[in-house]
């Protein structure tokens, strides 16, 4: 079994190249400061933390022990007005 890592040594969920890519998508001439990069990483972490916590609460509320895509969908839609298609819906998907 893999050794469990201490919580402090968490590797970032996004790396620099993916962030830069995303910034280029928004504006090809934009440059990213290192501090801004760190701030964006912190935002991503906070977002993950709150989304998964909320999804866990919702899953528990429906008496489940496993997280379902629906739990996350509901939180995203209600708290962020975010609808990401293609997940857990009855619609046609590849």
């Amino acid at each position, binding site marked *: 079994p893999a050794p469990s*890592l201490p*919580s402090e040594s*968490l*590797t*970032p*969920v*996004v*790396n620099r190249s*993916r*962030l830069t890519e*995303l*910034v280029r*998508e*928004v*504006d090809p001439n*934009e440059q990213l400061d290192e501090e*801004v990069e760190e701030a*964006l990483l912190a*935002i*991503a*972490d906070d*977002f*993950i*933390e709150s*989304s*998964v*916590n909320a*999804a*866990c*609460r919702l*899953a*528990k509320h429906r008496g489940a*022990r*496993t*997280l*379902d*895509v629906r739990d*996350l*969908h509901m939180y*995203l839609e209600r708290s*962020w007005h*975010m609808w*990401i298609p*293609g*997940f*857990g819906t009855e619609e*046609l998907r*590849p």
Partner: protein
Amino acid sequence: GTQIRSCKDEVFLLQQPLAQRLKQICSKHDMEEPSKEFSALLSHAVQERLKTVIEKLSVIAEHRIDIIKN
């Protein structure tokens, strides 16, 4: 049958660190680890969130430069 054309879904977040985070949060709630689909959706949501922030920052930065110029 119906032919579906699609492109491969690219996952924005790094899988290993994301799995680690999910495991940590889920164990806190005494929940089982979620499916691959769940982390893919989360990844898309994070990408969307960051994109919105970057878009806002980009507008703000442009205004800031304009002030310096004039």
